[in-house]
């Protein structure tokens, strides 16, 4: 068993172990130790990673699972697209456990078991090189999240949980249809007639233009819901507001990235012609999302909802970067996924800390907290600045590269659209500073806030890694960018090659068809030289 598999399944092992435990203390510590060890092990992936390679590394591959005739298998590994997302997942693991330490008081065991299963699912999603396996992990993440929202959530948790699952399911079932179809077609074309869902084989397969379009949309729909792309985003605020802090952090930190990751990993490379043809559609929706998400954010009285809508805005940047098809924007999108996980994760953690103290998320119930909880205020303002894209912190790097790359993109090629997207930096300041203004500045207006406790050691300890990483990724992002550059180039180049090949193929078919038509016409002419009327009819 290789390192990748260990990183995927250690949490599951921890979950099994947790099942056998009884005391709350033992359960918490087991969860913490498991996630911490997983993180440490995952650092091995970072250290042993060769950024110059564009193939999967730390590969684990089984024989085919299904009987002969189906090339479906356990095939995992990491490459430049997935490595950082895997590390983000394993990093958030112990942080989420720590953040739940006192927050979760009922059904402890079930909560931590589900949390650990969820981590296995997410890591699996990011490491699968078999689309079928990816699909399984994609669905696996739904179940624990459903329970986490449904059991440990807020007042309206059942509605939010059901909405979350159904909405995602609509997309993913259609995705399954598309995968099956693609598997058969690819099997015929490149795998000697054997059904295949191997990522590399599918990458080789040049899908005809006509089929690309609908397959692309089926794939893209599933991922766009997950991202979520405007106007498919309304499950997100509900899920976020109702989920417990730990759930929100995972949701914002990594679950949403499964959508953007899916776009980069599958949608674009499999269907490059369709992806480029409809790039403008996605770019426009992304830009609407950027501005719309920010403005709706500004109108929320609930701090958690404000942060939730900010995700719609931030992920709009990521989708824009993906569909701009330039190295700069694509790498910006990849790094922005990590950035969003760090800063929005931190924002949800801090809002959760406020909630734990006062049991309200309404900003009107706070005000003037800077005086009583300066440390909390510091972490919040720091994360807000990162989220607002202040240069020197991580958010800027991603947004800057995305916008810079999109501006010069030949596929989008609309400076006006990018200008609208850039207004996002103004609106981000508007809603984020508004939150700071409401929560931290002014005089203390509520008696109960006067005695609010500042962060304790555990809370500081779980925020520090995030804050440090925000600064590191803001000031020295290059080591992280280097991880994804060769892979990004490889992907863009192979997409372009594939696109050209498909177009050439289509042209050849057209020409052949035309030639065939011509030949047929001649034959018919010869044949029906006496019966002109009929020949005419046929050739028409």
């Amino acid at each position: 068993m290789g390192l990748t598999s260990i990183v995927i399944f250690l949490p599951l092992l921890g979950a099994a172990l947790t099942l056998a435990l009884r005391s709350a203390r033992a359960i918490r510590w087991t969860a913490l130790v498991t996630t911490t060890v997983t993180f440490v092990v995952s650092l091995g992936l970072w250290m042993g990673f060769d950024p110059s390679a564009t193939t999967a590394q730390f590969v684990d591959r089984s024989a085919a699972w299904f009987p002969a005739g189906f090339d479906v298998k356990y095939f995992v590994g990491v490459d430049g697209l997935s490595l950082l997302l895997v590390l983000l997942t394993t990093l958030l693991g112990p942080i989420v456990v720590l953040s739940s330490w006192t927050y979760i008081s009922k059904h402890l065991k079930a909560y931590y078991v589900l949390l650990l299963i969820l981590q296995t699912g997410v890591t699996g999603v990011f490491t699968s090189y078999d689309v079928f396996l990816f699909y399984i992990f994609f669905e696996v993440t739904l179940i624990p999240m459903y329970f986490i929202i449904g059991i440990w959530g807020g007042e309206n948790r059942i509605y939010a949980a059901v909405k979350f699952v159904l909405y995602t399911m609509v997309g993913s079932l259609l995705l399954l249809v598309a995968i099956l179809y693609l598997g058969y077609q690819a099997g015929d074309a490149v795998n000697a007639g054997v059904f295949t869902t191997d990522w590399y084989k599918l990458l080789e397969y040049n899908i005809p233009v006509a089929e690309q379009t609908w397959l692309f949309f089926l794939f893209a729909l599933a991922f766009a819901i997950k991202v979520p792309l405007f106007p498919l985003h309304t499950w997100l605020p509900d899920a976020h507001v109702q989920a417990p802090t730990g759930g929100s952090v995972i949701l914002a930190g990594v679950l949403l990235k499964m959508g953007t990751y899916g776009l980069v990993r599958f949608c674009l490379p499999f269907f490059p012609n369709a992806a480029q043809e409809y790039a403008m559609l996605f770019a426009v929706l992304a830009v609407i999302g950027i501005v719309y998400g920010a403005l709706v954010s500004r109108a929320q009285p609930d701090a958690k909802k404000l942060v939730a809508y900010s995700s719609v805005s931030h992920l709009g940047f990521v989708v824009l970067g993906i569909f701009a098809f330039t190295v700069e924007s694509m790498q910006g999108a990849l790094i922005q996924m990590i950035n969003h996980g760090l800063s929005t994760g931190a924002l949800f953690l801090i809002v959760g800390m406020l909630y734990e103290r006062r049991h309200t998320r309404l900003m009107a119930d706070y005000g003037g907290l800077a005086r009583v909880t300066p440390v909390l205020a510091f972490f919040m303002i720091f994360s807000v600045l990162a989220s607002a894209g202040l240069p020197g912190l991580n958010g800027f790097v991603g947004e800057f590269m995305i916008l810079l790359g999109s501006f010069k993109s030949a596929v989008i090629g609309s400076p006006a659209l990018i200008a609208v997207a850039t207004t996002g930096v103004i609106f981000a300041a508007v809603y984020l500073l508004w939150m700071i203004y409401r929560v931290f500045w002014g005089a203390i207006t509520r008696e109960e806030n006067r005695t609010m406790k500042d962060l304790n050691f555990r809370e500081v300890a779980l925020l520090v890694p995030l804050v440090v990483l925000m600064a590191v990724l803001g000031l020295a992002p290059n080591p992280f960018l280097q991880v994804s550059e060769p892979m990004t180039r490889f992907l863009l180049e192979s997409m372009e090659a594939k696109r050209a090949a498909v177009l050439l193929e289509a042209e050849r078919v057209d020409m052949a068809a035309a030639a065939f038509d011509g030949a047929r016409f001649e034959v018919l002419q010869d044949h029906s030289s006496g019966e002109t009327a009929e020949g005419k009819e046929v050739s028409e």
Partner: protein
Amino acid sequence: MEPDFLVRLILLLPLAGAVFNGIVPLFVPALRRREGLIGSVGTAVVAIPFVLALYLFLSFEGEPIVATVYTWMASGELDLSFAYRIDQLSLLMTLIVTGVGGLIHLYSIGYMHEDPGFWRFFAYLNLFIFAMLNLVLGNNLPVLFLGWEGVGLCSYLLIGFWYTDLKNSAAANKAFIMNRVGDFAFLLAMFLLFKELGSLDFDVVLTEGPAMSQSTINWVVFLFFFGATGKSAQIPLYTWLPDAMAGPTPVSALIHAATMVTSGLYLLARLSPVVLSAPAVMTVIAVVGALTALVAATIAITQNDIKKVLAYSTVSQLGYMFLASGVGAFYVAIFHVMTHAFFKGCLFLGSGSVIHGMHHVEHEVAHHGKGALDPQDMRTMGGLKKYMPTTRMTFLLSTLAIAGIPLFSGFFSKDEILFKAFEYGYDGHVYAWFAWGIGILTAILTAVYMTRCYVLTFEGKERWPMAGEVHPHESPWTMTLPLWVLGVLSVVGGFVGLPAVIAHGELNWIHHWLAGEHGPVLEAEVHTHVPLALEWGLIALGSLIALVGVGLAWQWYRQHALAFDARLRSAFGKLYQWASELYHVDDFYRATFVRAVVEGAEEGLAPFDRRVVDGIVNGVAKLTAGVSRGLRLLQTGIVQSYAVAIVFGVVLIIALMLFG
């Protein structure tokens, strides 16, 4: 010593100071009260870089030195480094930033004494210096932008420093957001440049930039200029600056007068080769600058808050500098940036000293139950020269400097701006005449409102309650020493830029330094020179305006004090009224942009999101549920009806097979 190493020290010391004064006391509350330690560390980390910069300045040989620290981001064509550029322009700016900055740090030790946020204050101030140094030293636009937004952040934190009053925090938000509007344009300018040139390094931008297509150049320069109107408080984005006076006064002196607000001028000077290639946009720059200068000066006359007067004066002076840039005299703009840093810094610190003193009076008066008074309101000041001789003397010197009294620093720089505008007009650029005319008008107004400010504050009778019993005291040495230094510089600082009439400009050091053979700042070429006699005439005109303005205002306000404002009000009627109400620009913004965003979000988009976007989702869910409920009725459980259905089905299939 290696310049490479020195640049790193210059940058890292203030950053280290910010961490030491900010992060450490945040987690170790016992340190927060150690004013001596925090104040001296905070000041030292700015003073040492000043000394280092001075060394670099003195040993500078004329060729720019680029110090590359490490790669920031590299991807595709993008290859950005944390690289810093030492040349004539950045050295001069570094000296101003660390020099004036160091003095203001020293001053703050006294001014912020016993403030519970003393540590935070020094942390923010140090962080500001770090950001500002990135701005002036950066060798590419993104590093400059890092500083550009960084100073905006510090400005936000310092305007809202006394956060328990929401008014201050609102002013801070306003400053940050208006600056972001400018930054938006700055970002677009960078995207456009990158698309055209594939690089954002100054070496590339300055050499290849002028060769871009005319429309691209125009867009780039216009967008950068629009960005500059945010940071440097010009029409249309100037209204945040007067509100920014909510911050502690040293902040107003350092950030909102001497350094940060001049960033826009630095940017234009740095990009001068590109800006000069966009004559159409230069017209816009000159006209906007001139109008801003005039509008702000008319408002300044009507204000009673001493800091507001100085704030509008700053906006007005910045307008002068943009005027200079707009006629292609970038080095003169930087010259005025420097003299303005001296005299406006001194004026603000002086006003801080006055406020410090009046606070004491406010306390005493309140203590005796004789009502409240605003320590910043000039209407309850007057006659302070008796009690605060140093503050008064330095304030007077810098007032004379800003008014442009001959041989004071402001005289040289302001006269040079007016002369350049005149000369450019003489050379055939009509808009420059217009700018010159407005400049002259503004010069008179400047002399008047500054004299009014000085006289109402320091001369005449004491106007606060209990004037016989309570009076302010002079400030401690940490505050008066910086006043003296800046006061003296306000007097002599102009001699580095002697006008062209003297030895044909041979003695104009700043021109040689910035715009000389190796200098980084270009200037507009002039083909028809102004005759020498006319040049002298212009100097005489400038001097006359200043002397007359100061003289008249002195007479008016010395004699009538506040009563003269009433006279002005009746003489100018609506115009005065309108100016004193700030021309309702803020009201206009509030009624349009702010309302559109806030109400559009709260009453438009948020309900739309809930009812329409989410409504459709829930509608689909309801529809599905409804259809299911309908279909459920078919499952009756009655075997007979199932049998009937089967029969019908079979008939249907047979029919299809037969006739289909």
